[in-house]
């Protein structure tokens, strides 16, 4: 049977792009298949190989296809679809999965007798290289498929995948690589990272833009403030959910998911057909929800990005997005979860949690229509990932330095790897890193005649337990007295509770019984609780792309252009802003000055997203206080930033114009931020990946405690005793590039320094400045008092504006 015949047997007809992919594979090419979810990408990548294998007839045994997927949960679905074709076309071939969920016995069997097709994750694929006996099986590989490559590019998992690919290519020279990707802004670059130059791009059907609706709040507040959960829209959301069979409701944070789940539970009779899914829940709980969803038993699942990828629920009718979409790629990914079948439009419902998000949703809608999606910039020179990879190779029978250097340099990430950096990594793994003197008693890799091997089988075993680039925090396991595990919370959260305290987690009210050895024993609580499990961590900034969209929408509003329903709903807020201050057009940069009891507040609105604002605020505070020493405190959100000073600046316009200068940016920025402290925090990820922090064997926490040190502590020890360590430098670089989005900051500064600075001095807060003021309050006072004060202030401002603000605005445009 040919693939075409198999297709018609299924009642399908191959798309042209699928045929093109099979033919391209046949010609020996590698490449990227760009098509939307649900358009048959899997078979486009698979059947070329099957067709060739049928023609060639039986060949020597061994692994033929390695299928790498970023999500464990996807592996199962993939296995089902791949089996379906293989069972008919090549019944002798075995299809198996190998992920961290696979049993130890199955895994060791796979090493001795590998299947023809193995479905795995980047981490497990990397692990294969650490077994010497796997070496021979990998030589027979014909094809590696990297699924959802758009999710991996731009991450350290992507870098790990690059390294795995070049290792596999060096042992199986004819190996072909095919990637599957959804739309991203830099598709060509992503293709080059995966396949190198000279590869083929196969264009499948592009995605149909989803049907989008926004739930408009009946009376959008004119003084929006972030920080509440949008539960005022609860009733509308319930009726939207009830008009369909099944809904996925996405929130931006796990905490928000818990709160929404509880609210829906309390206000509906959906019972078991309401589910919760986020990354900190125990796998069993998540799988239960997934299984019931597949069976069509779920009316509504409240989820975070944990359900964004892959998991195919054929019966999801609509996707609800609560709160800011943050970026278009992410929104498309989420929207793609509904009506997941070729040719059908997905349905997306936006739920704004504050008035400003109406503007974001309007911008997002336009960008979705235009298919305009963010880029994912590939990372470079991640020495931590390289160090991990080399230990992997050393565990799998060893590597030779010269050959491996050439292989490593053939990746996109390490193409600019210098001899010095390479030597340093080798030193780091053999003698401990310092170039001048070796760490005493250190051993990890052993070198003999330029061949490197692992120092002991015990070290190899430990390395395998710790492979990966996903770093998790100090997690405390939450479980019931009887033993059922619910998931994990952060130590910093649970440490603030005392036995007897109740909190909301995993959709349940729980009472803490005891906290011991990183395990929190709980029982069901009955009392109502106001404490919901929280997870720390950076909030995702608005993407550059969506930020530009927001600026365009504001320009449209300021110039009297036609707005959509979302923009119109935000109109009351925008016209009040225009009346009191200004809605900046493209080419204008708004600076507001308000003197309140606590000092003079300067609000600047670059609309560049939170991380860029963070760097910008630090830079401005530094430069403004350089000429004249003063204390400046800063607050940022996705739209703007606030600087609070005791005394008004004598000539704010000139001061800000000078401070927005684009010269000596990096130098000033590093002086402005506590770069050391940021790098220290960032070192956690690097220390973990480079194998400095040992996560321990599962269930054997105690035995490894003697070997545990926090990454912050390691950072201090390295800075003091080995300051030349390149991993420290990598931390500093990643902070500037990733955390502070340096290039974006530079672009933003170039853009805004060319804009006309419009200074408005206001008697009181404007709708734009109010959320920044509220964020400052939030940082300074306790939760209850904060909400009270913010409510009071917003009521006062509303009352003011209704009275028409009789007081004349002092000093309008300067």
């Amino acid at each position, binding site marked *: 049977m040919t693939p075409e015949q198999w297709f018609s047997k299924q009642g399908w007809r191959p798309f042209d792009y699928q045929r093109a992919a099979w033919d391209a594979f046949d010609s020996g090419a590698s490449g990227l298949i760009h098509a939307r979810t649900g358009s048959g990408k899997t078979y486009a990548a698979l059947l070329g190989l099957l067709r060739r294998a049928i023609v060639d007839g039986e060949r020597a045994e061994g692994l033929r296809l390695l299928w790498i997927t970023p999500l464990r949960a996807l592996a199962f679905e993939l296995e089902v679809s791949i089996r379906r074709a293989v069972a008919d076309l090549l019944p002798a071939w075995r299809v198996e999965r190998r992920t961290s969920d696979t049993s130890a016995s199955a895994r060791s069997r796979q090493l001795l007798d590998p299947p023809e097709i193995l479905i795995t994750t980047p981490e497990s694929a990397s692990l294969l290289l650490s077994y010497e006996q796997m070496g021979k099986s990998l030589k027979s590989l014909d094809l590696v498929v990297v699924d959802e490559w758009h999710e991996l590019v731009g991450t350290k998992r992507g870098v790990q995948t690059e390294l795995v690919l070049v290792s596999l290519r060096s042992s199986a020279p004819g190996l072909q690589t095919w990637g599957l990707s959804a739309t991203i802004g830099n598709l060509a670059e992503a293709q080059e990272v995966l396949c190198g130059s000279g590869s083929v791009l196969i264009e499948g059907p592009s995605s149909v833009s989803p049907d989008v609706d926004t739930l408009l709040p009946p009376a959008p507040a004119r003084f929006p403030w972030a920080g509440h959960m949008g539960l005022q829209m609860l009733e509308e959301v319930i009726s939207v959910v009830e008009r369909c069979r099944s809904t996925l409701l996405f929130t931006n944070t796990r*905490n928000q998911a818990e709160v929404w789940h509880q609210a829906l539970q309390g206000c509906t009779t959906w019972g078991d057909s309401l589910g919760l899914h986020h990354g900190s829940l125990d796998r069993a709980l998540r799988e239960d929800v997934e299984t019931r969803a597949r069976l069509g038993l779920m009316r509504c699942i409240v989820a975070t990005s944990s359900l964004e990828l892959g998991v195919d629920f054929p019966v999801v009718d609509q996707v609800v997005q609560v709160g800011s979409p943050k970026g278009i790629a992410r929104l498309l990914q989420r929207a793609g979860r509904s009506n997941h079948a070729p040719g059908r439009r997905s349905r997306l419902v936006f739920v704004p949690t504050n008035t400003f998000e109406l503007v974001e949703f309007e911008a997002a809608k336009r960008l979705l229509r235009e298919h305009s999606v963010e880029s994912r910039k590939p990372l470079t020179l991640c020495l931590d990932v390289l160090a991990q990879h080399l230990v992997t190779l050393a565990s799998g029978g060893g590597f030779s330095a010269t050959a491996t250097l050439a292989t490593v340099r053939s990746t996109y990430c390490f193409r600019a790897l210098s001899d010095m950096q390479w030597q340093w990594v080798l030193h780091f793994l053999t003698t401990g890193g310092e170039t001048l003197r070796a760490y*005493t008693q250190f051993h990890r890799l052993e070198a003999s005649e330029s061949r490197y091997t692992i120092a002991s089988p015990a070290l190899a075993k430990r390395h395998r337990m710790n492979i990966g680039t996903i770093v998790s925090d100090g997690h405390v396991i939450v479980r019931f007295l009887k033993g059922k595990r619910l998931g994990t919370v952060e130590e910093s959260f649970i440490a603030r509770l005392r036995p007897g305290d109740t909190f909301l987690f995993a959709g349940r009210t729980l009472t803490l019984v005891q906290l011991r050895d990183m395990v929190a024993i709980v029982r069901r609580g009955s009392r109502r609780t106001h404490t919901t499990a929280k997870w720390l*961590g950076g909030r995702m900034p608005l993407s550059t792309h969506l930020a530009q969209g927001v600026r365009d929408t504001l320009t449209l509003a300021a110039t009297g252009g036609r707005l959509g329903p979302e923009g119109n709903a935000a109109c009351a807020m925008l016209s009040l802003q225009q009346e009191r201050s200004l809605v900046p057009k493209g080419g204008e940069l708004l600076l507001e000055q308000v003197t309140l009891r606590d000092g003079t507040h300067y609000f600047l609105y670059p609309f560049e997203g939170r991380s860029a604002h963070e760097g910008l605020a630090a830079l401005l505070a530094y430069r403004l206080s350089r000429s004249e020493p003063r204390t400046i*405190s800063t607050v940022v959100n996705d739209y703007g930033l606030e600087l609070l000073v005791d005394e008004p600046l004598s000539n704010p316009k000139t001061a800000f114009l000078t401070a927005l200068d684009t010269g000596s940016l990096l130098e000033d920025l590093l002086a402005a931020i506590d770069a050391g*402290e940021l790098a220290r925090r960032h070192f956690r990820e690097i220390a973990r990946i480079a194998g400095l922090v040992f996560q321990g064997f599962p269930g054997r926490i105690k035995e490894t405690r003697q070997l545990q040190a926090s990454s912050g*502590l*390691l950072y201090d020890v390295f800075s*003091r005793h080995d300051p030349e360590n390149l991993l420290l430098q990598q931390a500093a670089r990643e902070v500037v590039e990733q955390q502070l989005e340096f290039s974006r900051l530079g672009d933003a500064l170039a853009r805004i320094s060319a804009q006309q600075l419009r200074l408005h001095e206001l008697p009181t807060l404007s709708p734009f400045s109010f959320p920044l003021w509220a964020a400052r309050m939030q940082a300074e006072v306790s939760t209850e008092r904060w909400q009270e004060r913010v409510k009071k202030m917003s009521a006062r401002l509303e009352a003011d504006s209704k009275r028409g603000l009789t007081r004349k605005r002092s000093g309008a445009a300067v």
Partner: protein
Amino acid sequence: MSMECILSTFQQHAVQIRGDRSLYWQRERTLFVADLHLGKDKAFRAQGIPVPTGATKDDLERLADALRATHAERLVILGDLLHGPEGCSSELIDTLRQWRRGFKALLITLVLGNHDRRVAIPTEWNLDLHDGTLDIGPYACCHEPPTTPQRFYLAGHLHPVVQLDARGRMRQRLRCLWVRPTGAVLPAFGSFTGGYRIRPSKGDQVWAFRDGQVAAVSLSRTSEETGPRRKAEQHR
């Protein structure tokens, strides 16, 4: 690095809280330290985790400086002088023996900690060993803070740190001395040691250490009071 001290009284006796994380009882010329964890870096290296050398040597130098500065006649180590057998190499035994020679007249008392018990302490170090609680004047010296204190205790073991909310966004975790009505928990003296975040209650006093400086902490500035709401959200 400058060194600072603060004077305080524990049980009507004047004590110096020193910026190097030791405690000095002037009347009895006794210096108290806790949790040095010497050789911890070595234990890491022996297990294939590349940690630079230097922490152990540094800590011993700092301890010597404190002894010289105070002219102490007695040193009381409140447990965990050593990290464990993996780190207790012949090199460390030698280093400590030589270090000991510099303080011939000094009486050194080691109240054994859980880590010390895993090691046979070399007799050549000339330490006065105690298992359990040792009463010195008004103080009950022990490693682990007692659950039901009978007398005012001086203890270690916890490696207390306090979390301070600085203005802006940065939060700091600093090692601290935690004084409760029933006793005091000393900060870990060793530089390669982690920390346990304490939750001081009303009536406690906390002193935080950073770069050889010590400062009293007003308890309203700890995150305990102001909470981590603003960074409460995360994705996934």
